[in-house]
């Protein structure tokens, strides 16, 4: 697959609230450096303004690269229901990220059919987590 890289994926709801977050690291990498989760959240949040701006310029769902911060690239995907999927990554992997977004979109739609799931609330389903892990390994970290 592509050059292994780190990825941070987040689903943002209508009130700029994170509904789901997940990190992916290359399989062979030594798992322990400090936790950069707070920085990733900050970068993703800062990119939301740019996502909101660029979503009016195109009617595609996949917005490609919207922002760059130090070594992190930010790609975004917006659905018709204005749910935003953000992915921070440090290597270019347009196709992989696009496929990952499409699969997560399908998974999200199926999850939203659950009558116990309140729209715009955090997603706490173990099945959803498993799917996210699976597609992350398949399309992102290889």
């Amino acid at each position, binding site marked *: 697959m592509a050059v292994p890289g780190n990825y941070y994926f987040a689903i943002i709801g209508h009130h700029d609230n994170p509904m789901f977050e997940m990190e992916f690291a290359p399989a062979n990498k030594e798992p322990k450096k400090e936790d950069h989760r707070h920085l990733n959240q900050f970068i993703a949040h800062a990119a939301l303004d740019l996502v909101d701006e660029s979503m009016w310029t195109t009617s595609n769902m996949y917005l490609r690269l919207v922002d760059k911060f130090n070594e992190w690239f930010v790609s975004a995907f917006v659905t018709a*229901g204005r749910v935003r999927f953000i992915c921070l990554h440090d290597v270019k992997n347009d196709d992989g990220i696009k496929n990952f977004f499409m699969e997560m*979109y399908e998974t999200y739609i199926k999850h939203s059919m659950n009558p116990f799931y309140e729209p715009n609330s955090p997603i706490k389903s173990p099945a959803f987590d498993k799917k996210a892990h699976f597609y992350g390994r398949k399309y992102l970290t290889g």
Partner: protein
Amino acid sequence: MAEEAVFDFIHMEAVSYVFQGGEKVSEDEAVSKLEHMGFATGYRLVERLTRESGRYKDELDIMKYICKDLWVTVYKKQIDNLRTNHQGVYVLHDNRFRLLTHMANGKQYLQYAPRYLAFTCGLVRGCLANLGVTCVVTAEVTHLPACKFQIQVQRG
């Protein structure tokens, strides 16, 4: 999608269920329950239905989506006429609304017709809410089975 009659029957039952209790149930309460059911349905439904149809950049496109794609998916026909004053008011004319066609052809049962439109008003409001348009949807019927849905967009 699947057999249309299933939705028709469930809708009929939902209306009669909400009006159970006879005199104790006020018309407004019951109608607003139906409208709320429609809202929750429309909100979730539109996330699923817009998978293939992409995103819409302006309000008029969203209204056209409601008139064409949504109406075809739910009621197997398009809205017959869309009027707007370009200032946030849209009127959708349906000359043969599917949920009213089996009821009457004319003025019979006119007083009961709003009950059968409440769910649809909510459905439209829910769809629009998830697409980013806050609005109020009301319905008017003067001659079954034709009816008009008026959408008033709340701005600011």
